[in-house]
């Protein structure tokens, strides 16, 4: 145990190191909305990285030849799985995009307050929800 720096701080030192109850059971903690949008920003980032396989495949095939272009077009028009992947990736992109814009706004000091943080998280959810529905309409 390290030495306490000053006698007057001893009580503080003891309080900080006391065996207070600690709750690290995440399932019992209610996360505030900005925490949820933050973790979803990360999750969608990981999804988009994995989804690059499909993105580059589609770009490669569509530019390789007229037949390749037709096969990508056909998959996106008739293949349910391809449509689902396209919608999923567009949805992840929409959320990641909107949450990223929110980050850039905070970088230029817009809405960097507790109320502003909650409000921007709400706007992020609402705007991406609209974009996700529009993406679904686009794909189907």
């Amino acid at each position: 145990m390290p030495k306490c720096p000053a006698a007057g701080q001893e009580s503080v030192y003891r309080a900080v190191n006391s065996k207070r109850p600690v709750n690290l059971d995440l399932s019992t903690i209610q996360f505030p909305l900005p925490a949820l949008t933050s973790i979803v920003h990360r999750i969608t980032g990981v999804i988009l990285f994995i989804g690059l396989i499909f993105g580059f495949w589609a770009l490669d095939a569509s530019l390789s030849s007229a037949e390749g272009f037709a096969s990508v077009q056909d998959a996106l028009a008739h293949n349910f799985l391809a449509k689902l992947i396209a919608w999923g990736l567009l949805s992840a992109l929409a959320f990641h995009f909107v949450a990223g814009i929110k980050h850039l706004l905070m970088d230029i000091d817009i809405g960097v307050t507790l109320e502003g943080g909650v409000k921007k998280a709400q706007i992020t959810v609402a705007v991406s929800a609209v974009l996700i529905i529009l993406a679904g309409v686009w794909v189907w």
Partner: protein
Amino acid sequence: MVTNITNLGRSGLSDWLVQRASAIVLALYTLFIVGYLLFSPGLDYATWSGLFAQTWMRIFSLLAFVSLSAHAWVGLWTVTTDYLKPTGIRIAAQSIIILAIFVFLVWGIQVLWGA
């Protein structure tokens, strides 16, 4: 200043800036591609490949792919550093991510300039 030997710019501030600059490029590229696809309903191969034959489009696309590489590395480095605590697993995951980014970048260049 806190430095780390595995992140992109060796400093958090540098990574922060790289993430913002690359984000802006990727946002513009995304808006362009989505807008182009939305406003070209009867898109055919000749028009699509003609777009990517333009020098400015190849420069714009390569800029986006390079930005994507940097953006993905800074983001995934942050995520893996936060959640993968055992050093061996983290280094393994980060190595696979770097390799995947390299493959995507070379693949992208090959798509742009044709094989």
